[in-house]
């Protein structure tokens, strides 16, 4: 590395032409850390899953793995990044594990046996079978953990992200992430959670928890609840990666493909969802030329994989199918709204939800007309659903305005303005109200 060290992103190998291609001896710590982060993203699943399989304890496995990372951070700046950094980390993790059990050796035979077994095993055998990676996923998303602990632990052990990277993605202090992970590990230990995939009886519920964690990461990226930007695509990309990993591990689970399809199709609109000034652009106003066509194709392929399993579409796949209708339509007018209505009906029956019902009303207004849609919205209002949310009055205002009932529409928009917490949305509602005179 030369004075151009700050340009390591453009020149990640250090341009040194050295064996291994990583930053060499005496490299800047920052370049070493970035190289280590990259290696760890690829290697962590293998190392943590193997350690957890051997020990039967994910928290201990994660501790040992972090010790290996710390040792690399300590030694690589002076020694340079090793030619095979993955093997180096594996060897250190293994040595740390053996040390750990040697210290406990006098306590019981099991630890002696573990240490011995590990000493005998060659590192190339440290290739976890997909089942071990699945155990890792299910343990990190175990129901004894709070949702944010599941998210942090999954990103750490499955996605291989450092606490710093997770903190950057979620715009929280590094200490907060570290604390969440420490607590998550303590909870797993206290609940004696085994390093296992769930029993068949628990499977659907546990799989749904895993998919929920992934989709939560995605939606936080798709529509950020914090920070200055309203979207954080890099977070959504991490969720997509996790989703693709799950699809590779569980190719026979239709909802996994449904979730991947949904995320690919929604993410395909990223470039069109933000105006040049950073404000959000709604589906109606998006420049469809900006949609990522390759990504739409990947979404459609994932949905086709779900369908090919022949077990029907559940909630994620149905939402993906709705997103697909939009993705392949040249314009709002040329969208197959009848089909979207049917898909929302199916979704509403599977998981009755007033937001889904409201979306169905919007689709009905496009497919049939505003009067039919208004009946659905009025029923929701009578039931008291979505009280306190700006969604219902803004949709109702839209429908009334299309029916020429301007005065009522203005009142609905005014109500919605008062309810929304989002400044951009408030301005849009005000504009609509003022357009009505």
């Amino acid at each position: 590395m030369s004075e151009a060290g700050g340009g390591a992103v453009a020149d990640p190998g250090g341009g040194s032409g050295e064996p291994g291609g990583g930053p060499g001896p005496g490299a800047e710590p920052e370049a070493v850390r970035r190289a280590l982060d990259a290696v760890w993203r690829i290697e962590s699943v293998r190392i943590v899953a193997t350690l957890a399989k051997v020990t039967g304890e994910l928290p201990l496995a994660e501790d040992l793995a972090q010790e290996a990372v710390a040792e690399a951070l300590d030694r690589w700046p002076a020694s340079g990044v090793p030619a095979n950094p993955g093997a180096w980390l594996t060897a250190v993790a293994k040595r740390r594990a053996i040390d750990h059990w040697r210290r406990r050796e006098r306590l019981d035979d099991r630890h002696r046996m573990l240490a011995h077994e590990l000493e005998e095993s060659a590192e190339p055998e440290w290739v976890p079978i997909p089942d071990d990676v699945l155990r890792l996923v299910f343990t990190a998303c175990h129901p004894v953990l709070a949702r944010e602990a599941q998210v942090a632990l999954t990103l750490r052990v499955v996605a291989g992200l450092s606490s710093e990277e997770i903190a950057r993605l979620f715009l929280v202090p590094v200490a907060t992430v570290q604390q969440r992970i420490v607590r998550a590990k303590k909870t797993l230990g206290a609940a004696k959670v085994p390093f296992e995939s769930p029993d068949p009886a628990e499977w659907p519920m546990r799989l749904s928890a895993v998919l929920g964690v992934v989709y939560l990461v995605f939606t936080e990226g798709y529509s950020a609840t914090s920070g200055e930007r309203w979207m954080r695509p890099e977070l959504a990309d991490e969720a997509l990666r996790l989703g693709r990993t799950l699809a590779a591990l569980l190719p026979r689970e239709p909802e996994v493909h449904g979730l991947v399809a949904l995320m690919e199709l929604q993410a395909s609109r990223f470039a069109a969802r933000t105006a040049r000034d950073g404000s959000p652009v709604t589906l109606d106003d998006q420049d469809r030329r900006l949609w990522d066509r390759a990504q739409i194709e990947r979404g459609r392929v994932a949905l086709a994989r779900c369908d090919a399993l022949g077990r029907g579409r559940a909630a994620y796949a149905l939402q993906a199918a709705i997103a697909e209708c939009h993705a392949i339509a040249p314009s709002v007018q040329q969208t197959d709204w009848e089909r979207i209505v049917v898909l929302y009906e199916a979704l509403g029956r599977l998981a009755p939800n007033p937001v889904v019902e409201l979306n169905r009303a919007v689709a009905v207004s496009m497919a049939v007309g505003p009067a039919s849609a208004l009946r659905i919205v009025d029923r929701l209002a009578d039931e008291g659903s979505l009280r306190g949310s700006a969604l219902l009055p803004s949709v109702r205002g839209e429908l009334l305005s299309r029916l020429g009932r301007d005065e009522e529409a203005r009142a609905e928009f005014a109500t919605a303005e008062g309810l929304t917490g989002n400044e951009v949305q408030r301005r849009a509602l005000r504009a609509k109200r003022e357009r009505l005179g």
Partner: protein
Amino acid sequence: MKYMLIMRTTAEALEASKDLDFEKIINDMGAYNESMITAGVLIGGDGLADAAEGFVVDFSAEAPVVTDGPYGEVHELFNGFWIVQVSSAEEALEWAKRAPLGAGTKLEVRRITDESDFEDFADNEYLQKEKEWRAEEHARAAGE
């Protein structure tokens, strides 16, 4: 961010590879691809058929000259590519280093451009048209 890993092989290395166990090559390549699929980073890729099947259009002269196969001072042949979606240039490098390739072969790693690379020319007529082309092409494909 997306990167393309572009495989470049010398004609000699390509010739020498014909003596290798082809099934082993397929298996090694398959394991490498599988590792990238499982990691959720592989989003595209293809191999290229023999360069002898292709042709080259050279723009050195006023009128382009078309020649069958690779020609001229060709030291390396493009043989195939992978497209990976990763979180950093360093990670793209790490994946590239893991490719089961041998002497005489290189992987060139290039970032794939996106909208942000053309921000300053967002209003350019042809960039606008290109978007139309892509959208029309897609609508056609979707309609099939």
